[in-house]
């Protein structure tokens, strides 16, 4: 059946209010493991010890199993204890309409995300940084500059400040907001002083 319109945050929210009820324990301990096991068996998945697959038929089976997992299980919403489900056409709508290649950053420091293939001769982009690791307030700027100074690095991924103005950035307090804004400002400044003011974070 054709979908009425593409899924977006608003349609997802509406479904999160009306979807099938389920407890989180049932979701975590029954729905997820049983459906994953069922689909593994249905598609006869066996990775045979390979890190990167060479069997294109088995790769396709994994894709179908993942697609079916999303279609048949759906997404559990923790606030409402309901399941949001998509139709097959709604999932294909997203697959057929991805964002095309795009730019991260600005000016001469911008880099372009381009599609790669298995075994592609072009290397991937490098997003260097602490990836959410804890970082002391007093060396936050210097530590992030160590990434911006590396030519191998194309964009920055941030660490997390342990304190801001000496206070812990406790969630849902003004210090959390101050820490988030300070992290971004210090990283942008570190990239600029490293000679890359347009580098994306």
């Amino acid at each position, binding site marked *: 059946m054709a979908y009425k319109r593409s*899924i*977006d*945050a*608003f349609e*997802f*929210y509406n479904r*999160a209010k009306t979807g099938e009820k389920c407890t989180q324990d049932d*979701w*975590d301990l029954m729905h*997820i*493991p049983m459906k*994953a*096991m069922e689909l*593994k068996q249905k598609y006869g*998945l066996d*990775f045979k010890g*390979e*890190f990167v697959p*060479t069997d294109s038929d088995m*790769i396709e089976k*994994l*894709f179908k199993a*993942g697609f079916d*997992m*999303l279609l048949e*299980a759906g*997404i559990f*919403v923790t606030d*409402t204890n309901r399941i949001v489900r998509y139709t097959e056409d709604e999932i294909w709508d*997203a*697959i057929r309409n*991805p*964002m*095309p290649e795009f730019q*991260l*950053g600005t000016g001469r420091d*911008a880099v372009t*995300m381009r599609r790669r*293939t*298995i*075994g*592609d001769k072009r*290397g*991937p982009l490098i997003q*260097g*940084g*602490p*990836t959410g*690791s*804890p*970082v*002391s307030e007093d060396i936050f700027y*210097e530590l992030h500059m*160590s*990434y911006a*100074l*590396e030519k*191998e*690095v194309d964009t920055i*991924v941030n660490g997390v400040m342990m304190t801001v103005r000496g206070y812990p950035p406790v969630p849902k307090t003004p210090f959390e907001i101050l820490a988030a804004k300070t992290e971004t400002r210090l990283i942008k400044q570190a990239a600029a002083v490293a000679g890359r003011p347009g580098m994306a974070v």
Partner: protein
Amino acid sequence: MLPSDSHEVSQLNELKIDLEAISVIAHYHGNSDIIMDEQMPIYGGYAGGLEETAIIDVASSINAFVMSGASWHLDGPVHIRWGSTNTRETLAVAGWASAAITNHTEFMQGNQYYPCAGPCTEMCFLELAAQAITDSASGREILSGVAAAKGVVTDKTTGMEARMMGEVARSAAGVDIAEINKILDKLVASYEKDYGNAPAGKTFQECYDIKTITPTDEHVKVYEGARKKLEGFGLVFK
């Protein structure tokens, strides 16, 4: 932040979300921001074993584009026992899931790095190199890291880990996949017995001159040693 920065929203384990995240997604779309949808499936967690976790990984990756309208998906299969993305099992989950998404969609995908060892150690460089080889060969568009020492110890990350990630990813690009698997088998075998007693490594302050933002001679020497070891496993640096 500018619209051309990556704006993060995270899914929950496994195939779950909270409504605060949905509001954040609406905000990003309202600003025409680049959206990075993040999710780290847990090997040995709710899904179970290797193939089951890869199924969840593929489903979460597709969901990033259905639910979040993401520009790119940041993956990160992680081992429940070791808290690492660089184990034999989690590398296989990442490699297979990336291949499935790469061959059957045009989605852009990244992966994040959580080695067991801390900075300025050979093991840290070898662990992250294994993931960079896997990610580059399996078609991922962007590599994100490195959260050395499992990303839980204050100040234990430095730019040198990202340098190795870049050098190795470029060198693995275009290499025959059967050869990639042979290199990975030898490389992972060289460190996988040491997860339980991985070297703690040094803090940024201990392995960089923080006035000039320059790695210490020791850090450069450890880097060179790891590079030589990788060449011994068959990786040809480009």
